[in-house]
């Protein structure tokens, strides 16, 4: 299925947000994810289903301040 990930069209085998994060190597506990306009706090929404054309944006949370 094709989704928009970080502004680019991408093919994915993932059917949930959690699977997509694992596929992309994103540490979901340390990321803010925007899925089709919904903002999910770190670690939230792993069970959310991905639909064809889903728009996903990830902002990683890393140490430093």
């Amino acid at each position, binding site marked *: 299925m094709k989704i928009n990930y970080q502004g680019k069209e991408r093919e994915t085998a993932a059917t949930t947000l959690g699977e997509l994060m694992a596929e992309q190597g994103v540490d979901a506990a*340390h990321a803010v994810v925007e899925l089709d306009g919904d903002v999910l706090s770190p670690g939230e929404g792993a069970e959310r289903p991905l639909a064809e054309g889903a728009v996903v944006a990830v902002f990683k949370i890393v140490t430093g301040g």
Partner: protein
Amino acid sequence: MDEGPNPFLTEVERSRLESARIGIAGAGGLGSNCAMHLVRAGVTHLTIADFDVVAESNLNRQFFFRNQIGRKKVYALAENLWRINVNVKLVLLPIRLTRENFAATFADCDILVEAFDSADAKAMFLASATPLDKPMVMASGIAGWGHSAEVVPRMIGGRLIAIGDGESGVGGEAGLYPVSPRVGIAAAMEANAVCSIILGHQF
């Protein structure tokens, strides 16, 4: 009447900046410098929480001085902020912020600033602050040198402004560490984002 440190403000700008109550979670590289910029800009109400004390290694980027080593950061920061504007009203909390005490700590605040160091604490901020339905400003990916143009602000979902490249963390394979120029850019951008929210400008 004392017009404070920013005589360039219009009456409307001054009124808005002096009415806003800003909560800052952390008083390290981000929080101390963000607070300094906010006070210079004309903000007069800050709530600042941080359990830590000033260490020598903090002087590479944080708004503290050598004679303040060993003191609680919130009290040392207050002293420095009052040297800019003696009329600033500060709520100073030398506590460790948690999911449990976060909402009560910042109940009176209009805008919340994430100014922690560790990724775990930043994640805690988001989990705690998001349900409070207030504008939020955070930073992630600000370690190392150079790449100034990659430290960008982005709006996430209409209520969160996230600053940084989202990649450059402390440590990792690149062995990055936090230094004043890049952390300072992010802290200034956090303050600029807060002011833009207060004054109704594009972030």
